[in-house]
């Protein structure tokens, strides 16, 4: 029989002990660095970073199922707003979402929780480009895509293979 005082003590200890965090997750978040000066937390922040590192449903950050950043070309840092990102999952369910002024897009699980593999295409007007390979399991584009390209990293997600004019006049 555990005395009442001991039980109360354990309960108090548990109540005031912070929840155990995932050290790997914490380390991954730290590695992303601080926010960029002048860009507050929100839909426009941290473009090009692996969104689901934080937005994975295990913290106060909104959970995303798929999220990423689209750039105008492969080798320039200009984001591509107004691009439609088409996602088609293993059950042939399609979902479309548009990029914002940072080139960011994000999908919440309540709207679309795909079953992998997921095939991706980008559209702007009548122009369409399809990703060569399907996404197999990771909802963060930047887990595989990012600059600089290397043997384990495909370059950033881009709309046009060659430079061309892009109308981003609706963005600040």
């Amino acid at each position, binding site marked *: 029989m555990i005395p009442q005082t001991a039980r109360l003590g354990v309960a108090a200890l548990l109540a005031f002990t912070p929840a155990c965090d995932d050290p790997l997750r914490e380390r991954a978040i730290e590695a992303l660095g601080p926010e960029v000066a002048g860009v507050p937390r929100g839909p426009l922040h941290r473009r090009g970073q692996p969104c689901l590192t934080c937005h994975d449903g295990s913290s106060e950050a909104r959970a995303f199922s798929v999220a990423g950043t689209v750039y105008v070309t492969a080798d320039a840092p200009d984001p591509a707003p107004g691009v439609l990102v088409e996602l088609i999952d293993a059950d042939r369910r399609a979902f479309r979402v548009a990029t914002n002024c940072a080139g960011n897009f994000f999908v919440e699980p309540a709207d679309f929780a795909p079953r992998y593999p997921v095939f991706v295409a980008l559209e702007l007007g009548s122009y369409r480009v399809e990703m060569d390979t399907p996404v197999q399991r990771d909802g963060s584009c930047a887990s595989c895509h990012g600059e600089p390209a290397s*043997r*384990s990293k495909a370059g950033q997600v881009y709309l046009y293979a060659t430079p061309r004019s892009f109308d981003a006049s609706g963005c600040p």
Partner: protein
Amino acid sequence: MRRGRLPGLVAALALAACSGADAPPPPSVTPPSAGWEDVSEMLGARCASLDCHGQPGRPLRLYHRAGLRLADVDVPGGGATTADEHAANLRAAAGLEPELFARVVGEGGLRAERLTLVRKALGLEGHKGGAPLAPGGSGDVCLRSWLAAATDDAACASAAEVERP
């Protein structure tokens, strides 16, 4: 006990411990290299994306022209899968369960489901990537034919084409 017998006894026990007392020693079999590049391309197309088996730390780490590259000068999507990458994939596939792999190959590919590689690919065992090869489909035929040292090139080529829905 005479001191002279101890080293021999220890060696015998160590050998028994390593080989397993009940199991016969595995046959000495080298992985079938004939047709492997077709199998490697098929596995690469279906399993080796950068967010899956194209990650360096995975037990079954696979290189592919569209995923992880072996040489620092290569990038995903930047050229064909190289011979060195195919060779590394072969070592990864055969090295997953080397003794069992040798046994399955030595028995002509019979009961290939003994291999985790086959069970996971067909979704017969828990696999985060689901079942990249449909049971009885061209990818399944490709993999089993290779294990039987009679690679079905056409099945491999068909399975290496991943169709968009």
